[in-house]
């Protein structure tokens, strides 16, 4: 007769996650990011005053999975909607999830101007280097040579230019207070078929610091380098290897600006 074993939960269900099965493809970083957002909101105890602004793209249904008040913005206009909400209700924690097709293409103007004004909002950019939801067209962030449905011979920089680096663009402005880029996918290690989860852990910290910056009145921006294996037309794990090989050097992760010194707290 053995004693009853007791287990203490280290990581468990989050009140901010609804538990609805996601529409994301298997292994997509959008899903990982959803959990990280829920965790950061719960860590602040901000569920009752957090407002999610979802954009157009794969993040459009983020409000289905996060148990928060949410607004769905027109294509590319999420920063403008966020700025409006924050100006009317400065007590709310306003954040948005945008894709690279949304924020860096059609919505670049809104992103740049909201950042330049230093609106106290948090923008999370999921950069998977392609238009995911619409079927894999070339995005402004597509790396040179990548085959997409609109560049069947690979992206030609002579006619379509170099990929746009949103983080570097925002660095040229005085407005943003917190700028960070995180490599979110699992990353290959030296031993075969073993990956590390550093990106997810760093991402959770980055979101907490972005919220902290917002509460101190600054604009925060975190870019998450991600993958889209369905439209890159490779296997799930091969997409992670490609991201580490091609996207990480093109979009180097790191802390680019931290005006309030919220990191390391």
């Amino acid at each position, binding site marked *: 007769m053995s004693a009853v*074993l007791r*287990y203490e939960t*280290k990581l468990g*269900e989050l009140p901010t996650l609804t538990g609805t*099965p996601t529409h994301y*493809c298997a*292994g997509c970083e959008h899903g*990982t990011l959803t959990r990280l957002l829920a965790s950061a909101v719960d860590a602040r105890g901000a569920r009752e005053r957090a407002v999610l602004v979802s954009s157009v793209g794969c993040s459009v249904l983020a409000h289905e999975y996060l148990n928060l008040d949410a607004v769905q913005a027109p294509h590319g206009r999420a920063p403008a909607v966020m700025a409006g909400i924050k100006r009317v209700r400065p007590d709310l924690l306003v954040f948005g999830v945008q894709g690279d097709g949304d924020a860096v293409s059609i919505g670049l103007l809104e992103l740049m101007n909201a950042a330049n004004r230093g609106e106290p909002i948090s923008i999370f950019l999921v950069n998977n280097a392609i238009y995911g939801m619409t079927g894999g067209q070339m995005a402004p962030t597509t790396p040179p040579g990548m085959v997409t449905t609109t560049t069947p011979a690979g992206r030609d920089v002579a006619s379509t230019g170099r990929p746009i680096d949103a983080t570097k663009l925002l660095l040229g402005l005085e407005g943003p207070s917190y700028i960070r880029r995180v490599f979110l996918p699992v990353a290959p290690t030296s031993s075969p078929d073993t990956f590390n989860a550093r990106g997810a852990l760093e991402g959770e910290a980055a979101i907490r610091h972005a919220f902290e910056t917002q509460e101190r009145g600054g604009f925060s921006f975190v870019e998450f380098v991600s993958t889209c294996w369905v439209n890159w037309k490779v296997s799930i794990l091969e997409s992670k290897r490609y991201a580490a090989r091609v996207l990480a050097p093109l979009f180097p992760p790191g802390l680019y600006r931290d005006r309030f010194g919220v990191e390391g707290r």
Partner: protein
Amino acid sequence: MIAAEEARPPRARVVVEAERCKGCDLCVVVCPQRNLHLATGFNRGGYHPAVFRYHGDRGDCTACGLCYWVCPDFAITEVARLVP
């Protein structure tokens, strides 16, 4: 064998909700001890869901929680430690 198992109870536990899992393999490849693997059977969605076992290929589960953080479908609902 059974007696040995009883003498040393599992020190950690990972709960996988098989119906939410899409069998993407991420938890399998990030687990340092290889405590997770994909089932041969299917769930209702037609995926091979991840299955947890305490004794992994490289060691026992330490409740590090990496699988919890990378899971894109919130299928890993709990990571727990034995109360000593």
